[in-house]
């Protein structure tokens, strides 16, 4: 399949971010300017966002065998771009006060975004691997972006080693599949003996990125060590992109109907729900707490994927939005309050936040409420849709798991809220002044959390998310015939 003009138009967001990366690099080469670099990156993302919804980009289009652009990929592209934009806004003030060399950060961030954008439209194992590596490699550097600090360096190294190991599993799985089918397309049907082990190995690789039990051990250390905005990037963009590709892979390869895979997915989902929430229970470090909470939330997402079906696909799509908006808000508040070398990440450092910084306190409260799934926040609606999908297809074990672990989870989220509203210590914490780009991003995330929580009719039903996946499945069966 050759690349024609229409195909190029369809992958315009990718191209624009790529061009934006070049432009930022060129700008840095000419003159170092933090504001310019940030603005340029932000502009690239906005332009990409617009291009994703140009009238020409309607329907399903295969662009080279590697990528498929359809409603599904457009939806995730939009979400990921908005999240990247949010991370950039949050990063700006943070970098201003912490890093010496700030401009390259945006290069890495944009490159990672390209990788993230490849994933939702990937319909080929090569695209999958390219996207994952393109997303991961900048992350190693981003994690260690503040090299004079101990923890970021440690986090970067840990992530490098472990992600490398997991990629090996992924590659091995892909190789096995190729040996079985002779094709690298998701849709290539494999029914032989090697298919199941191959798919399990691929799941190991993806499960590591998603931090699903039993591949979750790295999460807390990396989240804690990561500079807060980078933590936000891992928790939102990286997670969202890998979820998108995992779901497409499982649907299009038909692996979702294999008993063994379904069984494993259920075990992993339940394990993640419980392990994540239980690990977070006594945690006093907000970043570690968010890491553990991410394990449990990814467990919920996996539950949606395991259930399968149109309702579940929409529920997962909504949940990704819900979770990423809430967690971006949490990390955003922490980054916005970070002063110089210190991030207010311990609960004791957040005590009385509401009384010294009412808006930040309210926003962090909202994000915790949403993560806990309190009604009138988007987190509740997300859980509700998942539960509805679960009940719809009688996935009782998973549904009960969701309810029970949500109840456990409420404990530690509410502990953060308690800290926020307790009386401030003497002398009061010195927080960074919040700049307008960060507060804009935070307000946007707050608006999403509240608006979608109160009025969740987003028009997701108009996007044919499940249809994209199903049609690909049908397409694959058609080609093999």
């Amino acid at each position: 399949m050759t690349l024609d003009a229409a195909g190029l138009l369809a992958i315009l967001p990718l191209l624009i971010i790529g061009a934006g990366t070049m432009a930022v690099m060129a700008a840095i080469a000419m003159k170092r300017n933090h504001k310019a670099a940030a603005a340029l990156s932000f502009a690239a993302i906005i332009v990409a966002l617009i291009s994703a919804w140009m009238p020409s980009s309607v329907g399903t289009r295969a662009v080279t065998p590697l990528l498929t652009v359809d409603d599904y990929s457009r939806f995730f592209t939009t979400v990921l771009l908005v999240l990247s934009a949010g991370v950039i806004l949050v990063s700006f003030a943070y970098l201003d006060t912490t890093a010496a060399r700030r401009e390259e950060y945006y290069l890495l961030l944009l490159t990672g975004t390209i990788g993230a954008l490849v994933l939702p439209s990937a319909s080929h194992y090569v695209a999958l691997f390219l996207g994952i590596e393109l997303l991961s490699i900048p992350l190693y550097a981003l994690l260690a972006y503040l090299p004079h600090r101990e923890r970021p360096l440690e986090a970067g190294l840990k992530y490098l080693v472990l992600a490398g190991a997991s990629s090996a599993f992924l590659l091995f799985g892909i190789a096995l599949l190729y040996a079985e089918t002779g094709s690298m397309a998701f849709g290539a049907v494999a029914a032989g003996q090697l298919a199941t082990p191959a798919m399990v190995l691929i799941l190991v690789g993806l499960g590591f990125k998603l931090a699903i039990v039993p591949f979750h051990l790295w999460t807390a250390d990396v989240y804690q060590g990561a500079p807060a905005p980078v933590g936000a990037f891992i928790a939102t963009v990286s997670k969202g992109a890998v979820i998108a590709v995992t779901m497409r892979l499982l649907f299009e390869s038909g692996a979702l109907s294999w008993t063994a895979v379904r069984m494993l997915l259920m075990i992993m989902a339940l394990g993640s729900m419980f392990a994540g929430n239980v690990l977070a229970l006594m945690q006093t470090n907000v970043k570690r707490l968010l890491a553990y909470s991410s394990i449990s939330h990814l467990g919920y997402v996996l539950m949606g994927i395991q259930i399968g079906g149109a309702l579940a696909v929409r529920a997962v799509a909504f949940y990704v939005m819900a979770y990423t908006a809430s967690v971006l808000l949490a990390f955003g508040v922490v980054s916005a309050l970070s002063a110089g070398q210190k991030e207010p990440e311990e609960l004791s450092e957040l005590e009385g936040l509401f009384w010294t910084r009412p808006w930040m306190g309210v926003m962090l409260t909202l994000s915790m409420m949403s993560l806990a799934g309190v009604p009138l926040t988007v987190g509740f609606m997300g859980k509700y849709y998942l539960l509805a999908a679960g009940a719809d297809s009688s996935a009782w074990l998973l549904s009960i798991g969701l309810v029970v672990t949500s109840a456990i989870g409420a404990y530690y989220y509410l502990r953060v809220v308690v800290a926020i509203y307790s009386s401030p210590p003497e002398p009061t914490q010195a927080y960074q002044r919040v700049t307008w780009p960060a507060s804009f991003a935070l307000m946007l995330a707050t608006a999403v959390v509240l608006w979608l929580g109160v009025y969740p009719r987003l028009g997701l039903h108009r996007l044919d998310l499940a249809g994209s996946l199903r049609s690909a499945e049908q397409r694959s069966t058609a080609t093999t015939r």
Partner: protein
Amino acid sequence: MLRLLWLIPAIPMASAVVLALFGAGLRRRVVSIIGVGSVFASAVIASAVAADFVSSPPEGNAYRQVLWNWIGVGSLRLDAGLYLDALSLLMTLVVTCVGALIHLYSTEYMAHGEGFSRFFAYMNLFVASMLILVLGDNLVFLFLGWEGVGLCSFLLIGFWFTDPANVKAALKAFIVTRVGDTAFMIGLFLLFQRLGSLDIQQVLQNAQAQWPTGSAYAIAAAALLLGGAVGKSAQLPLHTWLPDAMAGPTPTSALIHAATMVTAGVYLIARTHALFVLAPPVMTAVAVIGALGLLMAGFSALTQREIKKVLAWSTVSQIGYMFLALGVGAWIGAMFHFFTHAFFKALLFLAAGHVVETLHENDIFRMGGLRKDLPITYWSFVIGGSALAGLPYITAGSYSKDQIIWRAWASPYGHPLLWAAAVAAVLLTSLYTYRLIFLVFFGSEAKTPEHLPGMAMLLPVIVLCVPSIAAGWLNRPPALGAHRLFDNFLESALPPAPAGAHPVLSEGLSELAAASAFAIGLALAWWLYIRRRAHVEAFASSGPAAALHRLWFSGWGFDSLYDALFVRPVVWIATVNKSDVVDQVYAAVSLGSRALNRALAVTQTGRVRWYAAGIAGGAAVLLGIAIFL
């Protein structure tokens, strides 16, 4: 004009919100203007709407205004919709007009002391809730107003919350009415489950179509609605909250008793009358509850010492008349008594407020001779009291009451015993009303007023004197030319009272009986409390009479009965189970979670080699499961 209907509840609601949010920062004058002005504006719009409604009646004699879709789940679709017919129009007019006068009165009555804006916020919310209650076109919207009224009564009765007794009274009102509300809610569930709708008109239509007269569902539904009505309207056996509700400021009592809250139950039954007609046993129950209530409350009123308590018991008794009328199918008669009662009871409470406010005294036995000190109060008390007692042909109360008494005999649902109770209650009413007047305004002066009520407190009272007399003339009995304006107006919404065979008695004779009862009561009061006051006190404190006096004074011992039956067992269980047994389960869950947390935390070593081994081990386990499954 009809399109302005939504403004009638919206204005007081908006004003309540404004006062609740910003009232504390506003000057009292501004608060008064907002608080009183909103209800007056509502009253003006209501009058305009009424004029429009009467001059050019809408199609089907009802006007429906759908504001927005409120709830839409499955087959349940509820609108925030208003329904205006003659019945709701009448209620709206009374609520807004009387409410406006009470608000005006409050500006002076509440002028001293804390919480001025808070008071008006509550009062406005009260009026708005009541308007939603009467105008709501579906039972859930009605229930929203119903609960709003309950909430506001709680807030207003406990307005002076620094005194624990007031808070107790507020809680009592809330909890006791809650019992009725629960029945009401179950009734709503039943109606929706069986009839598939909650729209009032639709429900009534479906009920008539699906349920034969006397069917079990109709009886159950009507009985459950009656439960709600009994709670809100303070009828037997859920009447105990009303006398205690006097803890609130006097204008609150006027609002609760005259225009809002207690008439909600009457309205509910009248509104769903088609359902009650399908359940004859419930109709009988309504009539009997009314008859018993009016006698029992009459006796209790006879022994009270506090001026407002006498009036409180008289309310229970008068609502009893309304229930009696509803029970015998005299829907319009009940609404007519509601109409006149709203005026004279508001008048009495506001006039009583003069006495309480200027004397700082509640006990009628420590009052006397106020006739000369407070002439306007005295005359308004005489007018209001005579209307309450039913001074024949002159006051409004007699017209409405006579009609009910006659229907208690003449209706096919009626019974001579009901009629006898109603007539006996006239005697009682007359007796306790004039006892109150004679004790407070006649005799030797015990205490002199510290000041005289001002204009804002006098004007509403004077204004209310007019309808307390004249409102009755809208419906003249046959002896006076059978001119039934009020009946004709309401007949578009409520069916006329059914006529039955009624030998022996004619309407004129029934009126004569009521008039004689009134006269006997008046004479008895005069003789006992002006001529032989010493005798009555001596008699009341002797032997069995004293016991009876105590029984009546305590409201027939219902409070101690409920205390023994419900309150103490619950408190006992609560004290026994102070460290809740059920809590142990949750404690176990919490302990288990912590233990699990400690166990899992061990895996978080921070070592890369361990993490990598975790990935490899996890992969091996997953592969094993996948292959060997």
